[in-house]
């Protein structure tokens, strides 16, 4: 379970103080597939980085399974990212001179998994995201944007994290592959009890999540869930 308590993140820009995340609080049960929508610059990525312990909040706290991130030293935060978090970045952020399979193996290498085991798992994950087997050993800079996105998703799944934070995971994919990725994420959350928080502009993706949030001027507002939307529509 993830508890976000009065989270605030401020930045100085000249004389101005910007608050992309302003007193955000919410809770997510384990195995929930949630989405955050909002305009560009509304603070979605900032919130994601706070949840993923990439950044530290100005105030407030994120509590994961009863453990406060605010009180964790840097070493523990690294361990938390390695063991409990899977990131899918908007710009993929893959290592350009490594192959697809090597990129997927990286988090497992940091987790101390043996080479044979991580190679097998990397190949399995790349098959799950429907990357052609012949492209598994191809360098990242020789893959298309969509293929790179799939490798990025496979890398996020490598260590079977409890929480996956995905920034526009289907943004560079064609409709068919996007659908498949959504199904994969949904399956992960429901069948493997993985909490998934997706930042997206894609309404259709947001509509398929269990819970939807809208970030406006740093404040998070929960929108009606799928069932409620369906009920409202039918009424």
């Amino acid at each position, binding site marked *: 379970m993830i508890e976000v308590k009065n989270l605030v993140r401020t930045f100085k820009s000249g004389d101005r103080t910007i608050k992309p995340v302003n007193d955000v609080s919410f809770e997510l049960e384990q195995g929930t597939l949630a989405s955050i929508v909002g305009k560009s610059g509304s603070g979605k990525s900032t919130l994601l980085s706070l949840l993923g312990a990439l950044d530290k909040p100005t105030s407030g706290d994120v509590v994961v399974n009863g453990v406060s991130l605010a009180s964790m030293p840097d070493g523990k935060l690294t361990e938390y990212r390695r063991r409990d978090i899977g990131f899918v970045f908007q710009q993929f952020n*893959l290592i350009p001179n490594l192959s697809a399979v090597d990129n997927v193996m990286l988090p497992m290498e940091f987790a101390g998994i043996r080479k044979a085991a991580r190679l097998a798992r990397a190949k399995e994950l790349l098959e799950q995201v429907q990357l052609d087997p012949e492209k598994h050993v191809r360098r990242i800079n020789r893959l298309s944007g969509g293929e790179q996105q799939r490798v990025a998703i496979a890398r996020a799944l490598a260590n079977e994290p409890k929480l996956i934070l995905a920034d526009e995971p289907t943004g560079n994919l064609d409709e068919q592959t996007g659908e498949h990725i959504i199904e994969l994420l949904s399956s992960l959350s429901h069948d493997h009890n993985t909490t998934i928080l997706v930042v997206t502009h894609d309404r259709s993706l947001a509509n398929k999540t269990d819970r939807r949030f809208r970030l406006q001027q740093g404040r998070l507002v929960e929108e009606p869930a799928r069932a409620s939307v369906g009920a409202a529509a039918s009424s």
Partner: protein
Amino acid sequence: MSVLARSVGNAFRNKVRTGAVVAVLAVAISLALSMLVANQAVAAKVTELNASVGTVLTVNPAGGQGFEGGGEPLTAEQAATAAAVPNVSSVVGTKALRLRNATEAAAQSAAGTQGAGTQAAGPGGGQGGPGGQTTTTLTTSLTAAVDAGTLGGRNQAAEGTTGSTAATQPVRSLPITATGIGAEVDSTGKALEITEGTGLGDYTAESTNALLGTTLAEKNGLKVGSTFTINDKTYTVAGLFDAGTTFGNNALYITLSSAQTLAELPGELSTMIVTVDTLENVDSTKTALQSALGTDKADVTQGQNLETAVSSLDSVKNISFIAFVAALGTAGLIILLIMVMLVRERRREIGVLKAIGAPNRTIGFQFVLEALVLVALGSVVGAAVASFASGGIASALISSNSSTTAATTGRGMPGGAAGFPGGAGLPSGGPFGGASQLLTTVTASASPGVIAAGIAAVFGVAIIGALVPALLTARIRPIEVLRGE
């Protein structure tokens, strides 16, 4: 993919840049290795010199050196006195003779420039030069291997100012040095390097055998078994020796007794070569020897030219060591700057690695390994260059120092090279007259051990140089990844 494989891969991401970095590193590393090779070679030479001739003292007649000339000759009794001094392990007497070509001497005699035959040098060396000791001049069938003009203007001092009456000096060859020796050693106490034939056997007995310098033998077309004359007495070439210098090889050795007989001065010595048992006892023995022989009778010296030579070699050693450290530092600095540049260039990538859970130590280690890959490549090229260039670089260092040393030691030293024509006639121009030659005989070869030690030092410095940027990676926060998004 392991950290090592990833580091190797990263090192070759930009092949042109990697090539340039390796080339620059190779220059610094080859310079460092060359300097280390020179340093080791010079250190070995200093040790060798100290071990071989560092314990040798030379006894000359008091006042028989330098520009003063003259002095009472040394005697066999004084040799016995010297041998009785504590810590003295051996005393070898020498008797110096000077040989003039009989035909040339007769011609000069006819011209009235100088009488031939046996004569004692007059005051001030008599033979007109600094470094004069009592020296006997005899005639020989041999022709000197050092031609007139070889020494330039100094050649004109062969007859000297005090001994010459002619207004115009005829051009002629230099005298040949003949030394009677009591053991198979040269005038510095070092064993003679006999290249052909044998030694003289019993050096204390009369003998008609002689050892000739290689160039003197070549000049006269003599081989082992050939004969020549000194004062009409026939001598047989028993062996040839190589003194390593032109002057040294324009000389011959006969037994001490033979020389004394030829000079008609039995029991008289030109010098005594005294060997002390250990280097530590040299100073005290020198004092004791001087006291035992009397300051008015003998001068005891400790091969000052050798000290100068060793001092010069020490200077080369220090310079090469400083250059080695500087080149090492340069290599370290190159690595530091390159790695700082790479870290700055890959901030985003480092952030990604941290975001997906890479510990700081893993990232730092990866960058250190990457630096070591570059250093390894630079070391291979640098070692190859150094193996070819180190000899030349060492020679250049040594010759630039030895020219300065030779200029210093060659003037005014007792019996030194500059005083050769009128001097005591010792090979190489004096007890340690070949000091500058000692410098040039340093052999700098790039041994695997020295190269390995140098490369180990380079790697040590490279690790230090790479650690700074590696530590910089720890300061990069993973949020860097999302900054640009």
